[in-house]
């Protein structure tokens, strides 16, 4: 589970990043470009259409083919806009589609007007031509009173109307046409004048009205609105994309943080592993050292026993020899032993012999300690209670405790589970730790506290020896378990006490650690694991 999880988390984050990347692109870019293009084309084609319509009205357009072409292209542009806009999505897309629908309707109207304009303009042009032609033929021929007056009036009125198209001018032209129409009943050659004149009046108004519609900017307004709607759509899309870009950045940060976290964990693991490895190397060193030490100890012990035994023999021999030698001195005046006058040696030799014995005894003790360190026998395995062992150890140390401090506290926890192992070895451990604590005290006012406790989560019984002593220098902390490492050479420390303690605790599958602040004191803590049965026993007792 632990192995797979970081991979799954990283993969998830990468997936999320990919999704955010896709979403953070500006939306529908190609579609919008096509629509923009279509809109531009539409404006161009509309301009062409307007130009051609104006030219047609002015009689400058040779034929209507270009109008048909522009109309078809405009219809195509509208179709392109419609088709492309279906791809767009979102709230603003509806606005765009509405604008396109309005624009489409506008263009449709415009094209219808253009069709009407073409038809009407054709009629207008023909009728103007015929009217002028008729006017010429009539004008040349007739010269009979009323007729020529009416024709001249019509000519004038029509000229006026073609120029301004004001309501008055139109009325006048129509009146003149009505009169000519009445006259034409008797004089049929006037008929074309009346007929085409009426067409001109009717069509001129129609053509100009249509022209005004066609070139009116109504579709331009829709185009502008559509342009705005498209810009708004793009802006909205850009805003959304920007939001996703921000999210993208944030998720990338999370990913980075997570990767950093993983690296930190990896490094911690590596450090832990290196420490374990060092411990293993240390343990191996100790084991081989133990083998070496035990063989040396054996080799030293045998000659030392001879020295010890002989020194006893030598002491009693000297007692006897001294009586004889005293007599000899009384008889003769002076004699020397080892170039020293006898009277002086008489006192010195017992001291020398005592020193030999003391030296040998010290050797014996060291060897014994070495043996205990190197091959501590498992001894008898028994059930015991830590509190009992603590009290036993302290009874042994009563004298030393009173000598070193006025403030010794003992806090024993109730209902500790029993332990299994060798209680004498544990007793030795406790004695060692308490002696160390006491010896660290600079004066009697400092305290030493011994506490026992039960740690349910670790399923262990523990013992703390806390002192207010001088503390341990940091560089020494890691070397405490090494044999022959001592800071008490002056006072005869062998450097084996804590080494033995460490070995014994390890034999009981326990832990030993020290926490120390130089100048403030040290806490030594041992923890010994309990057996399941012992735990159940305690539980039963507690539950009553």
């Amino acid at each position, binding site marked *: 589970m632990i192995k797979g999880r970081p991979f799954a988390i990283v993969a998830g984050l990468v997936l999320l990043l990919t999704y955010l990347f896709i979403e953070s692109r500006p939306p529908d870019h190609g579609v919008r470009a096509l629509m923009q293009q279509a809109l531009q084309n539409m404006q161009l084609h509309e301009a062409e259409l307007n130009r051609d319509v104006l030219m047609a009205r002015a009689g400058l357009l040779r034929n209507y083919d270009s109008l048909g072409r522009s109309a078809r292209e405009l*219809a195509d542009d509208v179709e392109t806009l419609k088709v492309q806009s279906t791809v767009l999505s979102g709230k603003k897309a509806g606005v765009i589609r509405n604008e396109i629908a309005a624009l489409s309707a506008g263009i449709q109207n415009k094209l219808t007007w253009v069709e009407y304009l073409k038809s009407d303009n054709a009629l207008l042009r023909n009728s103007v031509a015929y009217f002028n032609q008729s006017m010429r033929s009539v004008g040349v021929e007739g010269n009979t009173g009323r007729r020529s007056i009416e024709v001249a009036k019509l000519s004038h009125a029509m000229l006026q109307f073609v120029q301004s198209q004001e309501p008055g001018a139109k009325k006048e032209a129509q009146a003149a046409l009505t009169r000519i129409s009445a006259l034409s009943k008797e004089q049929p050659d006037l008929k074309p004048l009346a007929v085409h004149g009426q067409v001109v009046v009717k069509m001129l108004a129609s053509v100009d009205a249509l022209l005004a519609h066609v070139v009116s900017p109504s579709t331009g307004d829709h185009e502008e609105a559509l342009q705005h709607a498209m810009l708004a759509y793009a802006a909205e899309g850009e805003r959304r994309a920007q939001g996703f870009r921000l999210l993208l950045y944030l998720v990338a940060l999370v990913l980075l943080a997570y990767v950093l976290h993983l690296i930190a964990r990896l490094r911690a693991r590596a450090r832990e592993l290196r420490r374990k490895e060092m411990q293993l190397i240390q343990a191996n060193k100790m084991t081989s050292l133990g083998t070496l030490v035990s063989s040396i100890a054996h080799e030293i012990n045998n000659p030392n026993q001879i020295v010890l035994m002989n020194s006893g023999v030598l002491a009693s021999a000297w007692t006897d020899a001294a009586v004889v030698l005293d007599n000899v001195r009384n008889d003769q005046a002076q004699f020397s032993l080892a170039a020293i006058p006898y009277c002086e040696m008489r006192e010195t030799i017992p001291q020398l012999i005592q020193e030999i014995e003391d030296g040998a005894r010290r050797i014996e003790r060291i060897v014994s300690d070495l043996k205990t360190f190197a091959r501590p026998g498992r001894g008898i395995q028994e059930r015991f209670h830590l509190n009992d062992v603590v009290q036993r150890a302290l009874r042994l140390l009563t004298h030393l405790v009173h000598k070193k401090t006025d403030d010794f506290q003992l806090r024993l926890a109730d209902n500790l589970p029993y332990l299994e192992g060798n209680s004498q070895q544990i007793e030795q451990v406790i004695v060692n730790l308490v002696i160390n604590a006491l010896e660290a005290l600079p004066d009697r006012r400092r305290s030493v506290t011994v506490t026992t406790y039960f740690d349910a989560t670790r399923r262990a019984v523990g013992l703390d020896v806390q002192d207010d002593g001088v503390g341990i220098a940091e560089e020494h902390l890691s070397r405490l378990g090494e044999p022959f490492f001592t800071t008490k050479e002056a006072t005869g420390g062998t450097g084996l006490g804590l080494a033995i303690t460490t070995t014994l605790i390890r034999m009981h599958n326990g832990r030993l650690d020290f926490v120390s602040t130089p100048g403030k004191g040290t806490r030594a803590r041992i923890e010994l694991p309990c057996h399941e049965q012992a735990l159940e026993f305690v539980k039963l007792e507690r539950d009553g």
Partner: protein
Amino acid sequence: MRRFWVHVLIPVTIAGSLAFLQRTGVAQTEEPIRPIPPKVGFDSDRAAIGERLFHDVRLSPGRQESCASCHPLDHGGMDGLPVAMRPDGSSHLRNTPTVFNAALNTTYNWDGVAHTLESHADRIIRKLMKISWNEVIARLRSDSDYTSAFRAFYKDGLTRANILDALATFERSIITPNCRFDRFLRGQQDTLTEREARGYQLFKRYGCITCHQGINVGGNLYQKFGVFKDMASHKAPIDLGRIRITNVPRDEEVFRVPSLRNVAVTAPYFHDGREPDLTKAVETMAKVQLGKALPHEHADLIVEFLRTLTGEFRGALLPACTMEVRP
């Protein structure tokens, strides 16, 4: 060096500008009718499929009629009947326009109901042939020649849109260039006889040209049939024309102005085919559209001009369409 500028380049520039002005001047006095380009570009593979479809009777329910039944390519591209005959034997309301040069019109049918060749073909298949597209596609699918041809020349193979495209592509390919009048427009002044040239001048002077202009001599606008005279035929049911499409009052009796190209070989005339004679048709037009009784001599001259509008298809002049009743 400076002399070179003054004596050579400046005159050359002035001459160039003058030539340009002259050209634009020519453009301004350009004729209202434009010649058909001798060659048009189209996809010949697709047009070949279209030609086969055009002649394929499987497009009609009874496998009797094809597009070519009403638009025979060897008879002026139309059937020669006053009004078209439906596959079921009943009479259609209107005269069949020629399929030649149809691509040059801006809208289709007499009322301009279709704006593209594709939508025209679609309407004919659905409304005149009265056959469903599913049926058409199923019939064509069973023909491996069609399926392989469509697969070869269309990305998505045999579909309704591609059938229509093939037909339209074919229709765009059948234009009739190179008529004598087009050659005259291209500068071969002597192509027309003196009478034909006079006919053209009269065509312009009487004002026929205001509607029958552009590349197709018409076909690009609508006009009321009978500006100066009510033309509702009392023989036939009244055809209201474009108003049936637009529902706008002013479109009553308004029709698409037909192209006059190949007019001499596509009788009879008008939307209901009421006039078999071209001269009489010209006279009728002058009377009802221009309010003018044409002297007989002038009508003849105009008809002589109109005959010069007959073009070539596949290298041969279009043959005249003789009225014949189909079996």
